């Protein structure tokens, strides 16, 4: 105010425009950083989904590899949507995809006895679960799931049955 009273100039419109342009340029650069941060967050979420799927795969492998006998699918080159087998404690166990798109493991003995561990959700948002038994002691499977953004993830794995002496065709 005093400067203006004394006849001194303040900031001209051109100067303000130049400052605004510089500010906008740097804001644009800063937005780029937020873009990368957002992308990083998306990848984290997908990583989380894939790790869940990997855990599901490990659970399938652990349960199946020491199973005593596979009851279903039969030995063939066809794919089926569930695996029915007797585990190492000779309990009836089934892997299947239910109507809510959850990949589940049901231990029939425990389920019948009302135990909580009788029913386990292995993976959510499962689009497809396919199992194939090309040989008596080998089960190949793949699980296809989607994440929140409908991006699909697939894990393809195989299990070699370890209790081969008791595992008949």
């Amino acid at each position, binding site marked *: 105010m*005093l400067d203006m009273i004394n006849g001194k100039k303040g*900031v001209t419109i051109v100067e303000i425009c130049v*400052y605004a342009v*510089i500010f906008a340029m*740097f804001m644009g*650069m*800063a937005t*780029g*950083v937020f873009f*990368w*941060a957002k*992308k*990083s967050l998306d*990848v*984290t979420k*997908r*990583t989380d989904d*894939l*790790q869940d*799927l*990997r855990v599901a*795969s490990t659970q399938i*492998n652990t349960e199946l590899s020491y199973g005593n006998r596979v009851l279903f699918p039969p030995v063939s080159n066809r794919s089926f949507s569930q695996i029915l087998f007797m585990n190492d404690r000779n309990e009836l166990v089934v892997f299947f995809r239910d109507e809510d798109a959850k990949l589940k493991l049901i231990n029939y003995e425990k389920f019948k006895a009302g135990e909580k561990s009788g029913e386990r959700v292995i993976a959510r948002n499962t689009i497809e679960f*396919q199992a194939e038994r090309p*040989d008596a*002691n*080998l089960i*190949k499977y*793949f699980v*296809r799931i989607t994440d929140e953004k409908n991006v*699909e*993830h*697939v*894990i*393809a*794995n*195989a*299990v*070699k049955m370890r209790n*081969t002496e008791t595992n008949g065709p």
Partner: protein
Amino acid sequence: MNTNVIQNNRKARQGLSLLEVMLAVVIFILGIIPLLRLFSEGGLAQQKVIRDFPVTLSIAERILMTIENEIDEGRFDTAMFTGTDGNGVDITESVIENQEVSMALEKFYGTDNQSATRFLTQCRVLLSTKPSSDPNLIEITIRFLWNDRDTNSKDFKHGIELHLLKGKI
């Protein structure tokens, strides 16, 4: 009188001009943005590897389980893969011929209408066998090498190696 006193005080306590403040802000932003980008982009690359790891590990496990089964069934000649130059025999084509593995790779590298042969440039599966210290065992090694989906380099940036000790039949 009063106006002169105020003017003298202002000259004595002269602060920063708008230009100086703007300059400081610009220098600060110029310094901080590359650092932020470094963290975001570096973290993203790491996350991608973590994300891709379960998919490739599952495929490698699947190959190894299948080979183990083939050995048990007497359909696999380990001698064919012994004594290679240390890298192993390239079995990528036979691996990606499998529909389920191909589908897993398709989700891995994107779904934009691509043939399985495209994966040959993006990943490589090497198989090698060698005698172990125990004369009754043979060591089977699977090396799964891969590149990020945007990389066209001939050298593979990522890789996993699985070993299996198998009793001679």
